[in-house]
Structure formats: C-alpha cells, structure tokens
C-alpha cells in the first residue's frame, strides 16, 4: 500500500468521522429543541438546525467518497468547506442562539470539529506535495 493511498484513507476516515459528528450534534440539537418546544416556540431553531446539519453531513460524506475514489483535491476541498460550515454551525448554537444549546460542551466539543478540518487539510497538502 503506497503512502499516497494511506493518506487518502486517513483523510476519508476523518471526513466520515466529521459527518458522523455532525449527525450526533444534529441529534442532540433536535432532541433538545423538541423537549423545550412545549415551553417556548422553537420552530425557527428547528428548521435552521435541520437544514444546517443536513448540508454539513451531505458535504462531508460526499467529499470523503470523492477522496476514496481518488479525486483527492476535489474531495479535500469539499471536506474543508464542510468542516468550516460545521464550525459555523457549532459557533452559532454555542454562542449566539437563545438559549445556548452547545455552550456547556466547551471546550471538549471542539474535538468534534477537528476531524473534517484535518481531512481537508491532509487532502490539500497531499495534492500540493504531488
């Protein structure tokens, strides 16, 4: 197994891990919103969370498959973009939403954001070196 193939596998795994992390955060957000919706209306928050998590999961999964298929550059860029979008979602629900949904998870929650970013970084560095 060549060094290049190994890096692609690592990049793809990290991408899939990022997609899984987006699902976990989405599950938490939606269950929380569902629980407190009896107390105050959360329709807007629910819609935003569903769409954002759907976009992040789809992009990271697609990017990871592209890396596995050998389209490393394309896949890495998609994962990098998905990772950045994932970070924006986390920052919004951690710092800006009322009430704060993910603020309590800091700083350990940051580890959920690293895999997709690392996936994109590995892929882009590999393309630069080659």
């Amino acid at each position: 197994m060549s060094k290049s193939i190994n890096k692609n596998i690592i990049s793809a795994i990290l991408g899939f891990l990022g997609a899984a992390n987006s699902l976990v955060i989405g599950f938490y957000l939606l269950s929380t919103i569902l629980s407190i919706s009896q107390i105050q209306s959360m329709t807007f928050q629910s819609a935003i969370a569903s769409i954002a998590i759907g976009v992040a999961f789809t992009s990271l999964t697609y990017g990871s498959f592209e890396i596995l298929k050998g389209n490393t550059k394309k896949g890495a860029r998609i994962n990098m973009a998905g990772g950045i979008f994932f970070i924006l979602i986390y920052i919004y629900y951690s710092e800006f939403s009322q009430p704060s949904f993910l603020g309590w998870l800091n700083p350990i929650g940051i580890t959920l954001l690293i895999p997709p970013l690392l996936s994109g970084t590995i892929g882009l560095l590999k393309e630069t070196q080659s």
Partner: protein
Amino acid sequence: MNIHAFVSVMLFASLLFSTVVAFPVHAQPTTQPWLEVVPSTITETAPESFDVGVYIRGLDAEWELIGVQFLLTYDPTFIEVTNVTIGTFMGNTSWAIHGTFSVWRIEEGQVVYGELILPDATSGEWNLPEFPSGEGLIAAVTFKPISYESGASFDISAEALLGQYFLDANTDYIPFADPQNTTVTYGLLDFTYQPPTPFAGEIVAFEATEPIALIGNETLSFNTVYMWNFGDGAQENTTDPTVSHIYSKVGTHDVTLTYYFPDMSLTITTTDTITIGIDMQIALGVTVDVGSIYFRGEVAEFNVLTTHIGKAVNATQINAVLYYNGTELSDLSISVQLVGTGLYRIPYSIPAGAQAGTYTLLVEANYYGIAGTTLKTFLVSPTLTTTVAKILTIENGVATISTDIQVMKANITAINARLATINGDIATINSTLGTMTTSLSNLNATITSINGNTATINTTLGNVQTKLSDTQTTATQTLYVASILSAIAVILAVIILLILRKK
C-alpha cells in the same frame, strides 16, 4: 248679497213667480210651530262623523205652511260639516204633490237651509189636497269632529233666517215658538290613581277619563291612545284608559298623561303629581351571600341584596362588619360597592396570616327609616390539602384558582406562591394554600440556559432547573462519546501521518 238674503230671495222669488191669488185669511191656530235640533243616535264606538237632524214640531195644518228656512250655527273650531241631506217632511206626497224646491249653502260655522213646497205649475196656486202638519225631519246635517278641548261646550242652533222660519201659502210669515237647540259638551281630560297614598313597591292603578263629546243626550267617543309618563323614567302607551305601575323610588313624581287622537292628529296633555311613601310595617329584606370556604390570601367577594316588598331597592345606608371569634375584625362598610339596583358587592382579601376558623359577616341596611339586618358565616381553611387546585390564570398578581370546591381568586404574593418543578408544560407551585399546578404559559416561562439534559427556566414565580427528557440524556451521552472518539481519532491520524512521513 249675503247668503241669508240669497236663500230668502230664492224662496220668495219662487213664491211670487207662482202666486197670483192671495190665500184667503184664515183663523190662526193656538199652537205655533218650532224647530228642534236633535242628534241622531250614535251607535258606533268611535264614529268618524255624527248627524244632527233639524225637526219641525207642533205644526198645525191650519197654518198652511209651504216654506221653511233656517240658519244652523255651530263652533267651527271643533266640528265641520261634511254633508247636508234633505229631510222627508216637506217632501211628503200627502202635500208635496208638485214636488219641493230645496237650497242650502255651507259656510264656516253655519249652514243656511231653505225648502219650499212647489205650487201647481199651471195655476201657480197651492191647491194642495192638504197642508203639512204634525212633525218631521226637515234636514239632516253631518258633522265631523276636528278638535277636542277638555270641558269645552258649544251649541248647534237652528236660528231664524232674516228673523223668520216659516212661510204660509199667502206668502206671510208664520209665527213661531223658540227653537230647541242642542249643546255639545266635551268631557274633562284627567286621570286618577289608587291608592291615593301609595307605597314604594305597591301597585298603583291609574285610570284616565275617556274623552267623549255629549251631543244632547248622545255620547260620541273618540279613538284614543293614552301615553303615560310615570315620572320615574317609565313610560307606557295603551288604548285602554286603565294602567298600573309600581314605583320603586320614594318621593314625588310628576305623572304626565298625553291623550293622542289619531283621527284628528291631536295631542292633549295633562299632568298630576303622585307622592310615593314607604310602608313602615314591612321590614327591609337583606340577603347576604358570602360563599362557604376561603383560604389565606384569597380575594373573597361577598354579595348583598336589599329588597322591599319583593323588589330590589337601593338602601339609604348599609354597613358591613366582619367578626371572628366573637370580636370585630374589620369594618367593611367603606368597601361596599353598588353593582345594580339593590345589589352590592364587598371585596375582601383574606390576610395571609388570617386565623383558620369560622368568620361572621354582619350586614345592616336602612331604607328610609326601615331597617334590615342579616348575618352569614364562612370558613377560612389553612390549606387546599383536600382539593385538587389548578391555577387558571394569573393577572396583575392575582391568580384565579380552580379547586374541586370552587373557583377563587388569591394574591400570589399573599399566598407565597413559588415554582417547585416543571414537567413538560405543567408547572407545580407550592404556596401557603398548598400545592397547585398550572400551565407554563400562565407563568411567562422562558428558558435561560441549557446544560446537557438540564434546562434552567425563568418564570414569574422564580427560576427552576428541570431535566428535559430521557432522549435528551442519550443525546448528551452520545455527544460526549463522539467528542472523545474524535479526539482519539485525530491523535491516531496525526501519529500515522508522522510515521508515514518518516518512511
């Protein structure tokens, strides 16, 4: 030429034209004829018109009467002539074998009438088989009422025309006796009531005099609407002259009765005063409703009804005093509020530190010197332990609480209400009354923070932390696990990359 001369000229012109030979002188009878004005029998209840007949009486055939003339006068303010009908007397075929000639003219306030038995057209002589005699109707005049005046009267008179009534076959005037006229008298418009000194709450029977016009011995009635104003704000219109009314206010009232005559578009008003007294023999009824049970901090409402002879009346004075354990607790007189006629409410907030037990409310009322007193007791209970209490609404710090006993109001500060737990959208509240539940929407609940599966909720009754759900617990745990796995994965990836880089 005036109308009087007109009729006379017409009669005498006819007479001279037909007379060529003077009648022989004859001896005069001892009785002289006269005219009599007689109203016809009025059978209808409210006729639109009435008839007056002008009759000749006491006529002897020896007078050889061939002509009659008269002036029928009346007051045009009250009646007007609608028709004149020729009578049957002069046209009797026993003497009017050549027919009759009649003439009349209607003017304001009078009717001029003349009638002549015609002579033989060829000879111009009254060679009649017999001359008129006895009595009979000369003419009938139909009148229509146009006005009414209480107590007014006037005559309908048959007056002589140019000083004469009757003419004989020699064109001489026949001596006459004084006519018998008829008088029209209008009834007084007034009303009476019974009893003469009525009490408040007592039925007062009013009776209006019916408007009538006496025409000779005949009675003319009128279509009438009686419009009553009893002077206390009540009004009633009837077609019956009797009406009853009950006064609730003591004092003097101006009663106005307006007669409305629709056929004449005429109204006539009469006024009298009535003094309503009070029956000192009948006590003032005082009914008090205080409910049965109250709780500390609850806003109680007592109701008082004052009645006299079964009718609600406003008391001239009302006092309410609350007693507990044999001593006066509070004078609530200043809190008495009038809600409706005779109905009062007394709001009272049960103090948070009120003693549990039986309380007594004593109410004394006075109504123009008549007193009434009553008392009612209620219970103040320490808690709602035996009830299922639920707060329905909270407005301006006052909670409306539904229990299996009653719906009551309580000040949330006075009952020291505080939020205990929240389960879903149901909040449990502890208070000095006991435990109650309510919807979170009544507490203006907002979530201030979320920590994993725990939410901090702020309400008008304080903050509370609540566990959200079991699913939320699973999601939180999953989040922790994912974070740890991600950290491990990142570390492994970095190590592998470093190893690959060395190779």
